[in-house]
């Protein structure tokens, strides 16, 4: 009952009241303007289907600097607004070390809910792409070189004598924002590696042939949503390039799937 009352009062979080500020909710501004979206052969990476190069104009918006963490997600659960993610196996919910790791194993609906709870929404695929690639349409958040490595990305690479590659040796995700040198042009963290991210667009391999120039929002319907980004399991540049896009049915709850939220400016 008390929890419902808190919601009625419009407070952000019981957890926040009880345990102090929840971290990693800050957002960065992405200015209005045109950018280039998509992938072409000369980019030197494998181009996912449906990523034809085209120009897009987006109004100004905000996007989370960090992936949604379990700490943020837990605040939403504690307020009775979000449902528990799957747990078990490589799902990190309830792991004692995972509070500042990206929430994984969440469905599309759960991703929508955590964003709504924070007064935000999921980004469109175009918004995700601009925030990740910047005005120069970088292949990686930091540019086109150097190649992805555990210096900049939570990926699958044996480093520093680690016995295993996944998660730079952790065998799972790492805390959000742990790869500072991997920030995007706009300062957004973990746009490559760590976990894939739900976007609000339905998946199509033809949509961007004929998408609106201004603020494209994806096809009206579909059977899978678009995942963007990449994960702690990826080894190669083709799998870590910011051009990667995947179809994933909204009821999916993968080990490598998380979320980041966006917000319109008005």
């Amino acid at each position: 009952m008390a929890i419902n009352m808190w919601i009625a009062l419009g407070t952000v979080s019981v957890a926040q009241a009880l345990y102090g500020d929840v971290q990693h909710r800050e957002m960065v501004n992405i200015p209005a303007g045109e950018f280039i979206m998509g992938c072409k052969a000369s980019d030197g990476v494998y181009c996912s289907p449906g990523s034809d190069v085209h120009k897009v104009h987006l109004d100004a918006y905000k996007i989370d600097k960090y992936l949604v963490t379990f700490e943020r997600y837990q605040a939403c659960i504690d307020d009775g607004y979000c449902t528990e993610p799957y747990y078990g196996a490589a799902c990190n919910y309830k792991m004692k070390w995972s509070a500042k790791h990206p929430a994984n194993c969440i469905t599309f609906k759960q991703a929508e809910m955590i964003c709504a709870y924070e007064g935000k929404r999921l980004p469109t695929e175009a918004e995700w792409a601009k925030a990740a690639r910047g005005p120069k349409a970088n292949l990686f958040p930091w540019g086109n070189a150097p190649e992805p490595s555990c210096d900049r990305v939570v990926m699958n690479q044996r480093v520093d004598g680690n016995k295993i590659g996944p998660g730079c040796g952790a065998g799972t995700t790492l805390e959000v924002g742990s790869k500072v040198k991997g920030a995007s042009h706009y300062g957004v963290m973990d746009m490559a590696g760590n976990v894939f991210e739900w976007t609000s667009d339905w998946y199509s391999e033809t949509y961007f042939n004929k998408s609106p120039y201004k603020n494209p929002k994806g096809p009206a319907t579909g059977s899978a949503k678009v995942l963007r980004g990449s994960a702690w399991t990826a080894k190669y540049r083709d799998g870590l390039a910011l051009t990667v896009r995947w179809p994933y049915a909204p009821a999916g709850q993968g080990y490598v799937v998380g979320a980041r939220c966006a917000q319109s400016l008005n």
Partner: protein
Amino acid sequence: MSSVRYPWPIMLSVLWGAHIQAADSAVKSPSVESFSKLYQSVKINPEHREMALIPSSEFSMGCDPYRDEVCSYVPEEQQHKVYVSAFKIDKYEVTTNKYAECVNAGECDIPTAGGLMHYGDPEAGNFPINGVSWYQAKKYCEWEGKRLPTSAEWELAARGTDGRTFPWGDEKADCTRAVMDRENAGFLGCGTGNSLNVGSKPKGASPYGVMDMAGNLWEWTSDWYDEHYYFNSAYDNPKGPSHGELKITRGGDFLSRQSYELRTTGRFPYYPSNPSPAIGFRCVFDDVAEVK
């Protein structure tokens, strides 16, 4: 239910060779050709075609509250008696090499690859195939003249009829018997960072000699998932609910951290068209007399 399959052959690049490391080198798109070259003369370990006979049996399906302290957390695993007719089941999870045979034959789709989904990785030939949707798994089994097991068949093959919690008995799961992670993570695939060759944990065999029924990969079954199903399941060869959104996978995976995740009664529901690095499959055959 929609039976959408994503055709995209070769998501997320694989080119498992090292030639994509240099920033200035030309990068070829991964292609069907690069895979068919790798698998053109694929050699299958004959053992990997073996099947085990599971005799007709009545058994108690679900969690036994007198033997497994986890039951109170999983009321949906309500114990109930079922009867399952004799069948044969693959002794091993379908390997990457075996799956490639079906691709070569033009009958199976190329699985999703990239990350820990290892189709195209020259070192993964005897790993269980992953990155396959439920539809792709079903198609492979049908190509072999088999089918996916029902959830009840799977559970019987994994634990037999004596009510044990794990394929080998009641001792907790660890890397002596199962390909898994450890409690606090960081050791997935028993410290290898990946799945392992099928049958690499012979001490983890089921009473019928079926391997990797705990750990390595989750396995697709033919049943839809419904958390209420065990409360009104058919007794005779139950086949699961008539419809649903998620299919049941069984058996835990190389990323499982807790012993209880590998219990033979555990079920993980997953969306049938979504690929996963953690899900593979094995097939069953009805005509017991014909299979050697």
